[in-house]
């Protein structure tokens, strides 16, 4: 995953703890329109597993997980 997608909104959830980043993403997805791409910055290790899990369960699309220095950007597209 080298080419990073353009996001419509970016949530900076760094330095919040599990389940903070996931909860902030869910909130943002609810407010977003179908098709919008949302990026979450998270320094919580659990996010890299529970955000993809939630995304598939909720029927959205995981665009990718991009590792940065000390955090990850997780990009999700709202599908419905």
């Amino acid at each position: 995953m080298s080419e990073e997608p353009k996001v419509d909104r970016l949530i900076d959830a760094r330095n919040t703890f599990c389940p903070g980043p996931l909860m902030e993403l869910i909130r943002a997805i609810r407010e977003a329109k179908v098709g919008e791409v949302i990026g979450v910055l998270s320094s919580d290790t659990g996010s890299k597993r529970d955000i993809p899990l939630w995304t598939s369960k909720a029927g959205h699309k995981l665009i990718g997980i991009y590792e940065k220095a000390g955090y990850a950007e997780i990009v999700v597209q709202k599908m419905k």
Partner: protein
Amino acid sequence: MAERLSMIVFSGTVDKLYPVSILASGAVAMGMDVDIFLTFWGLNAFFKDTIKTNTRMSKDFEDMTSMMMQVMKEKKVPSWHDTLRKAKELGNVRIHACSMTLDLLGLKKENLDDMVDDIMGVGEFIETARDSKITLFI
């Protein structure tokens, strides 16, 4: 109907109220309904006047209490009650107060934090929890 997580919250120490709020958050995130039954010290922790000032920790980890509190403050970890309130905003979390404990302490629903939805007897809670996917006693 959504699957359900039921929790019987007996403990009133901050270290045990954290998992209650975090598990409730995880459950609503994963599309589950949550029912919480507050009894004894668990109910005590939801008193309006002391919910925000409670700093009690489990006796068995007493030596680590001040260190934990300090770390949580430094890392700006949200309080257990704010975490629970957020879970309630996001999903279907119902919080029930044990009628027996309330009677025992001579208190009313008005004395409890507004997160508490209603007062319930144990029979009704068991009936509510009967078909839960997960049931925990904390």
